[in-house]
């Protein structure tokens, strides 16, 4: 455990250290890269609650990522064109304020996770994987064929949304904001993992029959985990859209969902800092390998294959020397 704590601290501090170094060397692109890694890490931290602790292999978490992205895109585009979002008995205006957008993204993706969870958690195993995948495709095709918000072309926002007291267009300030959110969520996840709810959820993964015998409902535990997990990934989606000032159906694509699982497993499944390590490693690989070869995804595929076949426990698991986190 000591060793894992040291590795966790190193992983946690690597991102801000990189961002600060890039600030001193005046390389804003590297700061943006670190921000991207932190946002993808946040999405994967969300998934890790369902996947790592709950054992739910969701191949549809891009739904929540995309919903968060579109929450930002829709609100900001209405604010940008001064056209109210709802214009009936009540008038709802768009918004360029990050806290408002975050709230909508979190509530929207939590609601979607509730509906998808209620339907999908009736099944288990392969059926669950395929149903979450199918829900992802449903949102993907809907976003392509729904013309109001750009359809296939996506939606661009001219100026990054505002946060009170900060200049979000300054890369280091936006990074700081994202990193604080990531830290808060990580803290929350560590509390959840040690709470009675987290213990029960973990137990429901290991032995659902026993959990049921003591009077707890695995379905409800998993549903709550799925909803929290979706909400966190939705928040990451809103941030990701704000980073790029662009949303498109790609955020809903199933490759996105696949990559989130890759982050979690590459870093170390079920470990608090696993998704962070995995997302950083992936962004690093993406950045270095795409300079080496146009076909860099071949190398990513090969590395992933080797990790799955031979290095179970991922990056943190290999360094800390235990295969499974808390069993």
């Amino acid at each position, binding site marked *: 455990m000591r060793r894992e704590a040291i590795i966790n601290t190193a992983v946690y501090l690597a991102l801000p250290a990189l961002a600060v170094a890039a600030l001193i060397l005046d390389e804003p692109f590297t700061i943006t890269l670190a921000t991207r890694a932190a946002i993808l890490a946040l999405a994967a931290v969300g998934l890790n609650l369902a996947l790592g602790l709950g054992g739910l292999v969701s191949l549809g978490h891009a739904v929540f990522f995309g919903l968060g992205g579109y929450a930002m895109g829709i609100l900001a585009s209405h604010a940008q064109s001064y056209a109210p979002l709802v214009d009936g008995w009540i008038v709802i205006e768009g918004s360029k304020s990050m806290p408002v957008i975050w709230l909508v993204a979190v509530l929207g993706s939590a609601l979607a996770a509730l509906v998808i969870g209620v339907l999908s958690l009736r099944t288990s195993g392969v059926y669950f*994987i*395929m149903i979450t995948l199918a829900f992802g495709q449903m949102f993907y095709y*809907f976003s392509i064929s729904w013309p109001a918000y750009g359809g296939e072309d996506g939606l661009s926002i001219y100026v990054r949304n505002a946060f009170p007291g900060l200049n979000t267009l300054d890369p280091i300030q936006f990074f700081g904001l994202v990193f604080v959110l990531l830290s808060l969520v990580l803290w929350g996840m560590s509390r959840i993992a040690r709470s009675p709810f987290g213990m029960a959820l973990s137990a429901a993964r290991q032995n659902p029959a026993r959990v049921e015998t003591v009077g707890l409902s695995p379905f409800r535990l998993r549903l709550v985990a799925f909803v929290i997990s979706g909400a966190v990934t939705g928040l990451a989606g809103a941030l990701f859209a704000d980073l790029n000032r662009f949303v498109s159906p790609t955020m809903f694509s199933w490759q996105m969902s696949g990559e989130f*699982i*890759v982050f979690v497993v590459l870093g170390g*499944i079920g470990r608090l800092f696993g998704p962070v390590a995995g997302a950083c490693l992936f962004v690093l690989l993406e950045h270095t390998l795409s300079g080496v070869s146009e076909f860099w995804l071949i190398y990513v595929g*090969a590395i992933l*294959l080797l990790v*799955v076949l031979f290095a179970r426990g991922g990056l943190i698991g290999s360094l800390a020397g235990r295969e499974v986190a808390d069993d």
Partner: protein
Amino acid sequence: MTTLLLIEQVLNGLQAGIMLFLMAAGLTLIFGVMGLINLAHGSLYMIGAFAAAGVAGATGSFVLALMASLGAAAAAGAIVEVTVIRRLYDRDHLDQVLATFALILIFSEGTRWLFGSFPLYLDVPAAFAGPVTLPGGIQYPAYRLLIIVVGLAVAAGLFLLIARTKIGIQIRAGESDREMIGALGVDISRLYTIVFALGAALAGLAGALVGAIQSVQVGMGEPVLILAFVVIVIGGIGSIKGALVGALLVGLTDTLGGVLLPLAFGLFLDPSTATSIGSALASMAIYILMAVVLIYRPTGLYGATT
């Protein structure tokens, strides 16, 4: 006029459904016998299409192209099974998903490296290039009709193979108790390689047949793969009969939804709104169908109820 259009769309739906069946049959066999969830099945479809396009470009023969697609996909399937997939049978679904996701990356980028990013074109054989007139005066492309016939023939052959041959008996026995047939002296790892190569060949054939209608390009397999997943979830994983019923349901729903839903909304909405709502809903129709089936039967139409 509308009846003719409707019949044409039903035939299109049938054709899409039959092609989906070729994909779904392999997936469901592989899952039923080996318990493996194979995301890379779409890559085998792509390999079949590329092999066919390559051979057709070199020789000009469509029959040789189809044989090449079967051979290439089966060979790729057998190689992948022996080198990678074999190590995954004892693993949980998460590892299987990840490893086969990695295989997709390797296959897709490898194909892009070999053939480039531009789509290839596979020509419909000259004898089937024109339309045929069906009873009732319907003009329908001969090639699409050929696909339906070939697909049905392959489906019938597959049912016979499973029901009547020795290898079929072993496959069915493998589905119900793999340790037992191992103990009875069946070479189980050879059986697994054969089943995987068989599924791969079916996917490759579907890729080649569809490749002549659409373009042959990297990434063509994944949308079909996901539809095939929907098919086997609806039909019940492991059931070939379920795969056939599910494939036809999905093919017809997808095709007819795209035509009928905008028309239906057109009855009470203005045309442009009706088209956008109708086509948006049509793109989701099969997933709604799947959700409805699962609410009533969580293990699919023909799945084992546990």
